[in-house]
């Protein structure tokens, strides 16, 4: 539904270079990159706030590259809520319909429906200055959807919110996506990308260096930069159980039982295990680590600081080891080893 071909834009000393990507109807794409990588500029190009120097943008089978911003049907939710301060909440939501000359009766019906969906019914007559951060972002979303866009663009929509509100808004975004809204979401937060994305893209210095499903992208980063940005390679679909053992929570990853600390309710989510905190030993370690797995080395890769090894131990874990230790332990593909880590190295979060 969104097709970007060879998009190029020079802006001062910054250059967005030959971006190609394609997003399917109903997808949830997250573009991950540090600030200054060009991801917000890409959104601006899609919206028509900026004109590309080269390349084409197709939305719903239509070339919109030269189309005026107001005709593009790609609604943007900005990083900070950009609500019109002189209009009430309901007038903000109604704005897109009002400028499209839709009848007042229809507008009222639609505003009420959106208010209900986003739990804004009580706030409709408020001034926007009286809203909390979370409320304001919900109004932003309702207002964006009132325009009935083909594509919803989100520019770091969660970064101005506190942790609890982020959780609520993430849920809301997921629901929207499940109901069929196609979303392109930009962030610099690896965890956010992991929680939300069906498809993920990594941007660096104006280039889209990787594009695919999160597992492909994070497991096989296309560059050292992508690896660093994606932060953690060991992440798994997991189920947090309600059972505890010695105060620790049990979490199942495939058929492997691990322990973590969590106050969350039992349920499905992701478990991230920090590869820098994995300890490799040839014999059963006698340490305080609560998680000990046994397995064999599947792959070995040289890195600037030593070796990255992939261990099959019911789950595939990536661990790092220095050259000295590697040689001392005499490791090779197929070596049987133990891999251990403290509960603090394993973090569970809901998706």
């Amino acid at each position, binding site marked *: 539904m969104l097709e970007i071909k060879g998009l190029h834009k020079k802006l001062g000393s910054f250059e967005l270079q030959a971006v190609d990507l394609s997003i399917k109807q109903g997808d949830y794409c997250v573009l991950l990159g540090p600030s200054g990588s060009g991801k917000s500029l890409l959104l601006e190009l899609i919206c028509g706030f900026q004109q590309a120097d080269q390349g084409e943008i197709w939305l719903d089978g239509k070339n919109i590259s030269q189309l005026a911003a*107001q005709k593009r049907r*790609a609604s943007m939710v900005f990083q900070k809520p*950009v609500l019109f301060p002189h209009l009430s909440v309901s007038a903000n939501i109604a704005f897109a319909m009002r400028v499209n000359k839709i009848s007042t009766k229809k507008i009222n019906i639609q505003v009420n429906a959106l208010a209900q969906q986003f739990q804004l019914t009580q706030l409709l007559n408020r001034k926007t200055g009286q809203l909390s951060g979370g409320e304001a972002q919900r109004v932003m979303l309702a207002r964006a959807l009132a325009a009935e866009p083909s594509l919803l663009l989100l520019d770091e929509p969660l970064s101005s919110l506190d942790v609890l509100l982020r959780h609520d808004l993430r849920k809301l975004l997921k629901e929207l996506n499940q109901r069929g809204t196609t979303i392109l979401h930009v962030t610099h937060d690896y965890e956010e990308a992991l929680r939300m994305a069906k498809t993920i893209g990594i941007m660096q210095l104006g280039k889209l260096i990787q594009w695919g499903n999160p597992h492909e992208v994070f497991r096989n980063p296309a560059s050292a930069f992508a690896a660093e940005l994606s932060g953690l390679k060991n992440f798994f679909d997991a189920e947090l159980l309600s059972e505890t053992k010695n105060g620790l929570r049990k979490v199942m990853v495939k058929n492997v039982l691990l322990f973590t600390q969590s106050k969350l309710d039992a349920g499905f989510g992701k478990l991230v295990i920090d590869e820098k905190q994995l300890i490799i030993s040839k014999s059963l370690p006698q340490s305080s680590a609560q998680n000990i797995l046994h397995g064999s080395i599947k792959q070995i890769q040289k890195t600037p600081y030593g070796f990255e090894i992939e261990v099959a131990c019911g789950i595939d874990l990536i661990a790092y080891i220095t050259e000295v230790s590697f040689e001392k332990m005499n490791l090779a593909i197929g070596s049987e080893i133990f891999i251990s880590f403290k509960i603090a190295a394993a973090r569970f979060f809901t998706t």
Partner: protein
Amino acid sequence: MHTKNHLYCMVTKYSWLRLVFIFFSGIVLLFVLAPLLRLLLAPGLSGLIEAALDQQVSQSIFRTLGIAMSTTLVAGFITVPFAWLMARSRFRFKSVINAIIDLPVMIPHSAAGIALLGIINRESVIGQWASSLGISFIDQPAGIAIAMAFVSLPFLYNASRDAFEAQSGVYEKAALNLGASQWQTFYLISLPMAAKGILSGYVMMFGRAMSEFGAIVIIAYHPMVTPVMIFDRFNAFGLKSAQGIAALFVLISLIVFISLRLLAKRQSDARN
């Protein structure tokens, strides 16, 4: 914030600095108020009534307010979009253009009148073109309006430009993104969001226009606007005779000014 201010006052309440500054403030206030109070009190109530009943005076006051009002509205209609354009544009000679707009405030108003006269007199291109359309500027309301606009326009321009500049362009982007045309974006978003600043610019422009003397006296001594009439009465009949009409005009100016300010404030309060 409140506590901080409170603390600040506590610290400086009895300091020498504060006492000296209060003394200076008193001098400034007195300097402005004393002549005006003296002016308002000098003719007494009877003097004010006498001035108000003088048909020439009342006609001139209505003429002054009427022309100033129409000038402000008409000039404002084209000045506000110009201010928006300048607030949203980035180009090399922007500050030069801003300085040019400020010129009328800087130069002597009699010089402004002479300058205007140079291009609208009957022999000039514009004067001839206007007279072919049946419009004349010299000693005509149209000439008065031009003089008023020339000297008062910078106030509206600067206030509007400041208001637009203070408003982030992202609101306009948001409106366009929601499908509003550029025109709709301007009058539904940019204009109302800058309304407070623009309204206060209008009040300033109107106030400046109705009190203009120097430029008007050169272009149109007649029909007399009130500032010219005050000067005329003073010249012909002396201080006493001028005081009544001056006091009446100042009083009316004050009433108009305060009501417009209140109106502008109420409008912006209603929005916030």
